[in-house]
Every structure is written in C-alpha cells, then in structure tokens.
C-alpha cells in the first residue's frame, strides 16, 4: 500500500524533527545502570517528558483514540521508536515496560471502557506508573495459586493478603493485583484482577534488600484495602484469561530488539579479558578456553534470540517457542558468571571499598541466576517447551480440578 508507506514516512520525518527539538540525545550521559539511579526526582523528570510526548501526539501510538492514544498501527510505532533510538525517552526503569508494554496493554484487552477512559489518560501523561502485584510468598511458579483475597462488599472489594517480588513497587503509582475471589472454585476459576492505588489506605510497600545490596523489588501488604469495583480489570473470576494475556505480553516485552545479527561476534567479553589480564593469565590455555566459551555463548544467545523472533514474526511457531530464548539465558548466564569467577580468581572477588568496577564479578555472580528464576524459572520453561513445542503429555495435576479451599487445607493443615 504505497499511500500507507508514504504516510508512515511522513510520520517518521515529523517525529525526527520533533525529537531533535524536544528531547535530549543519548550520547553524553552515562546510561542508568543500577536501581539506585532511580529516585522519585529522577522519575519526575521522565514524567514531565512523558507529558510533553503526549502533548505532541507521540504517547500511546497504537492505543485507542477513545482513551487518548493515537490509534495508529504498529508500523507507525516502529518508525517512531527507530527515530527515538538516539534519544533519551522517558525512563522509569522497569516500570516503563510493566506500565507501557505489559499492564496497560493487558488492561486495554480486558478492562471496562469506563475504567480505561479514566485510567489510560493518566498513564499517557506520566501520572500513573503501574507495577505488578503478582507473586506471593506461597506462590511464584504456581501463578494460579495466589491466596490474596478480595471480598465483595457492595460496589467495592476489600483486599487482604501479601505480594512479593513486585519490581519497583515503591516507586509506582498503581499496581495490577491478582486476587482470589472464589475459594470454592478450582484455582484457575476463582481469580480476579484489580487496579490498586499504591497509596491506598492499608497498602504497605517495603523494598526488599537483595544480595547485591540494592533493593529493586518489594514485599507488599494489603490490610483491608478498599478497591472500587470500577477499578476491577476483567470479569469476576475470569482472571486467568487476563493472566494469560499478561504472560504473553511479558514474554514479548522480554524479547530483545529485532536487530537480527547485524553485529557479528563483536569484541570478546572485555570485562573477562580485563580479569584475565589483571590475573596475568591471558596466555593460559585454560583461561583462553573459558574466555572463548563465554564469548561463544553470548553470540549463540543473540543468534538464537534472532531466530526465535523471526519464527514468531512469521507465525511459524506458537508463542511458547520463546521459551527456548528464556531457557538459553537461564542456562548460560549462570555459566558466564561462574566463568568470570574462575578466570579472575580470588583477586577478582576482593576490591578496595568503593570501587564499583572491582565489585562487578562478585555482583554479577550473585545476580547470575536472575534469568534462571525471575519471569518464569528454567523448570517452567522446560515444561512449556516439552508440552507445547515437543508435544509431550502434561503432568497429572493434584490440584487443578479441586476447590482451592481444599487444596490449601491439605498443603497447610495436613503436614503443618
């Protein structure tokens, strides 16, 4: 459609001009690397920029116009993002993806028009950053096994319970909260989602100190938190369908940019080469093998990600095929972190206080299993691959068809 191509080109050129006039270019500023770089003040700057983008018509490019979006196709969004790659777009840390790529698109698919008309405009101007209240102390991989309860009270719901691993909840305005609304139904059929204000009475959010010494995720307590029914996302007890939408969007958000393999292998792990050089072991054949292994795994990971992306784009594979990409990172990231320790030895695991670069090997090692556990463990990826890609039979379930109340009683009461 040549007219459409022309329109997109025009749009792109307009974006290029606007960005040059209104947004800081990326070069010249160290990118934010750690969670400590994100404070309410830093976020405030990005909120202002988000508002500016909205006013110029570059927020919610593919979102419906009735809620304040631009209602354009993803081709327009891609054109804008390509132009914007050189610029500092609003940066809310992990909340950028959870708000704009995961939670609000989920809301758009399932929430009532009345809710969306109220909520989406706030998001578009940077007033509503959304985190996820999803996992709980007693259920992570078993997503449907949540125990936070929502009890109906007239045209409100009262929520009691606890969430955990909610990334950046301490900086968010809202959280999408999964709660159980029917304890007599089997676990998948008694779930409902709610949009909860983080500053609502009864909500307590506490950052959790992590082994890397930073705090990016939180534990969250809900004590008689009142949520209007108008802030429910999706139908009562139909929360599992909403969850599936969200999981699909999470998976897509994790996919690296579709840049393919234009880059080739690139430089060999500069950080590991530095470690080897510092240890005086650049000529050690054993160390060289490790360097090459780490370098190779990185390149293969990119090749696989590109291949997975291509298969999904062409519609040749189900979404579960992306599990290979996640499993790869969950398998090889810990190996790389370990290789660094083996290359650098004890000198790499001690440093002068305050030397951030010196602490890198230790920090990377502590964080090495993040991809293996967060966002779906290696084991869950293997289940998905085995069942949905390889066609192997599902496990028999001991809980999927029984009232959740009974399941809880058995696991909690039976064995203490």
């Amino acid at each position, binding site marked *: 459609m040549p007219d459409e191509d022309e329109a997109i080109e025009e749009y792109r050129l307009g974006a290029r001009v606007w960005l040059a006039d209104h947004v800081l270019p990326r070069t010249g500023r160290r990118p934010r690397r750690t969670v400590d770089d994100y404070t309410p003040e830093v976020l405030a700057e990005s909120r202002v920029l988000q508002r500016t983008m909205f006013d110029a018509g570059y927020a919610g490019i593919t979102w419906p116009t009735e809620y304040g979006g631009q209602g354009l196709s993803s081709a327009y969004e891609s054109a804008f993002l390509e132009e914007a790659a050189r610029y500092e777009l609003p940066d809310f840390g992990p909340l950028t993806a959870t708000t704009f790529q995961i939670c609000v698109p989920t809301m758009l698919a399932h929430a009532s028009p009345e809710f969306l008309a109220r909520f989406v405009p706030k998001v578009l101007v940077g007033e509503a950053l959304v985190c996820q209240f999803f996992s709980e102390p007693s259920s992570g991989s078993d997503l449907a096994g949540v125990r936070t309860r929502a009890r109906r009270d007239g045209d409100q719901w009262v929520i009691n319970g606890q969430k955990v691993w909610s990334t950046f909840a301490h900086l968010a305005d809202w959280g999408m909260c999964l709660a159980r609304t029917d304890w007599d139904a089997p676990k998948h059929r008694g779930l409902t989602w709610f949009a909860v204000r983080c500053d609502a009475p009864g909500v307590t959010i506490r950052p959790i100190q992590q082994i890397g010494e930073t705090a990016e995720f939180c534990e969250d307590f809900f004590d008689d938190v009142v949520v209007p029914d108008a802030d429910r996302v999706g139908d009562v007890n139909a929360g599992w369908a909403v969850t599936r939408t969200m999981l699909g969007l999470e998976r897509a958000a994790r996919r690296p940019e579709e840049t393919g393999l234009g880059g080739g292998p690139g430089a060999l792990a500069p950080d590991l080469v530095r470690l080897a050089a510092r240890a005086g072991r650049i000529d050690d054949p054993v160390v060289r093998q490790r360097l090459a292994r780490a370098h190779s795994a990185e390149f293969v990971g990119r090749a696989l990600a590109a291949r997975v992306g291509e298969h999904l784009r062409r519609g040749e594979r189900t979404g579960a095929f992306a599990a*290979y990409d996640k499993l790869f990172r969950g398998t090889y990231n810990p190996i790389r972190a370990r290789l660094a320790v083996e290359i650098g030895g004890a000198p790499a695991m001690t440093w002068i206080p305050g030397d951030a670069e010196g602490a890198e090997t230790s920090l990377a090692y502590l964080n090495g299993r993040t991809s293996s556990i967060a966002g779906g463990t290696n084991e869950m990826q293997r289940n998905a691959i085995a069942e949905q890609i390889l066609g192997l039979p599902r496990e028999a379930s001991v809980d999927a068809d029984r009232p959740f109340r009974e399941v809880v009683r058995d696991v909690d009461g039976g064995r203490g």
Partner: protein
Amino acid sequence: MELDLTAEQQLQRDAAARFIAATCPISTIRDLVRSPAGLPAGYLDAAAQLGWFAMFVPEQHGGGTVSGSAVRDAAALAEERGRTLQPGPFGSTNVVAAAVTAAGSPEQRGAWLPPLRDGTSVATWAFPAADGPSPSSLEAAAVPAGFRLSGHAPLVQDAALADQLLVTAVGPGGPAQFVVASTTPGITVTALQSHDITQRFASVSFDEVMVPAAARLEGPGGAEADVEQQLQLACVLSVADTVGAMDALFEMTRRYALDRTAFGRPIGSFQAVKHQLADLGLALESSKAVAAAAVDAMDTRRDDSGETVSIAKAWVADRGVDLAQGCFQVFGGIGYTWDHDLHLYLRRITMNGLLFGSADWHRERICRLQGL
C-alpha cells in the same frame, strides 16, 4: 536452516530427499558399512546430476547454483544429507572445487573442475595435522621440475575414493598447496577404520612425491588466505551435516518418548524425561541458529566470518555430543543394540565435531582471531 531457504533451494532439498530415500536410506547405510566402496553403485553419478558438485564451479565449466549462493545451497544439502547420514565425498569434493575455483589458474580450472562437477573425479583436502589444519608436518621442497612433497597427512576424509588430493604443505616461502593425483608415485593411501562408520577416512603419506609446478595452487591473496577459506567452508558444511543429524535424531527420540511406556504411561510424560528433552531441544535450536549465522557470515563475506565459523564449529561440536548422549539416555538399553540407528548418529555427530579442528582448537583460534 528452513527459515532461510528460497523456493529453489527447497526444491533442491526435496529432490535430494527423494534421491536419498530411493537410493540410500538409513537401512542401506548400515549395509554399506561393510562394503569396500562405501557407496551404492551409481550414487556419485546421480548426485552429480542433481548438482551436488556443481555449486562452487563457475558456469563456464558447467557449474551453477539454484539460489545464486553456493555456500547456502551447499549447506542446505549438507544438512539434508546429515539427516540420513549419507556417505560419500560431498564436503570433500566441494571444498576442493571451491578452492580450485577461487585460487586456480584458468588452465587448472579448465582441467580439474569439469570432472569434479560431473562426479567422475573425486577430490579431498589432505592437510597434515590430525586436529586442525596447521601445515606443520608436510613439506614441499622446491626442485628444478617443480616440488617434492614429503610428510604425512594422518586423517583425510574420503582419501581412498579420491583420485585428486588438494595438499597443504609448508613450502619454501610459506604455506603451499598442490592438486595431485592420488596415484602419483610415492603417495600411499591407507584406509583407516574409524569410530564413524558412516564416513570413510584414510591416512596419506608422501614419500618424496614429485609434482610439477603446474600442480601448485595459489590464489591472488596467497596460500594462507586460500587455506583459511577452505577451512571455513569445510567447517560450515560439517556443521550443517551435524545439525541435520541432530535434528533427525532428536525427532526420533521425541517420538520414542511418546511411544514407549513405563509405569502405565509414556516415558515422555515423566518430568525428568520432559526436561531432558527440553534441554536437548535447546541444544538443537541453538545449534541451528549459530549454524545459520555461520552460513550467513560466509555468504555475505563478512570480515569476521572466520570467527563466526569457529564459534559455530565449537558450539555444534559440544552441543551435538550433548544431544547424542542425551538421546542415548532416553532410548535406554535399546540404544546399545547394533540394529538401532542411535549409534550411527552418535558416531557421525561425535566424529564431525572432531574434524577440521576440535572444539578446543576452534576456541583457541577464536582467541587468536580476537588478538589475544
């Protein structure tokens, strides 16, 4: 590789699959193990007619590709051959054909290429080191009429079948390559038995072999550059062969996990087996991805193609063995029987990983290419 095939390449691959099914299915492979030639009668002729040796030969000598890219076509065919563990000098002849095309004089090309393309001549690359082609124990001394070759190439694929050998030696001024007839006096080809009973290997010794100057092969960039290109192509074709074998073996194993029952249900319903197969699936998919990257790098003549090819070679060598061993575990006892095909795949995959440089050799090469 299926992502990247053009319609013409798919047709060529399908024609190959039909030819293989009609001429040399897996059941035939095992019979051939004990045959002297190791090939069904007429196999090379028929393969040549399908264009299997034409890809790196210029059109003026009767060659051609279906897609315009010799390396892509050859890799696709290599993968298809790997699925059914096809015998014969596919990689061997193609590497030599590519070398002659790239580095040969017009006379050399005119003389050597047409018979290779027709399948009436079989060629293979003889280099001295058993692990990685560093020309250290094969020497070419200059003599009035040409050169005198002395030394030993301990492991040459298809040498017993080959009538032409591309020999890499150390000459007076550096690496030197020659195309010599295997019947040249002083050349002794000793067939070897090997772990991989689907492919044939021999050791070749050179006892003061006299070759004319006209036998010397050197491209405009020098012999070292020629050897580098040969190594890359040999590795890419070997990797493609392995990926095809891995794919076929994995599918066989997946089906087995669905069919075989124990404790009242398919063994593939047990989580341990499911997770094992998922990890093997990852080994396969990551291997396909890096193999495709290596083909792409060679095809687009990237400066870093040497490194990409070595990354692919080392990766697929390791993951191939992981996969073959893992599939063996899923098959259990039956995998120990001669009559089951598993061991044929295990042998081929493992051996391929060792040829043209082991995984360790390629990793060291990666470091050197990176300037370390």
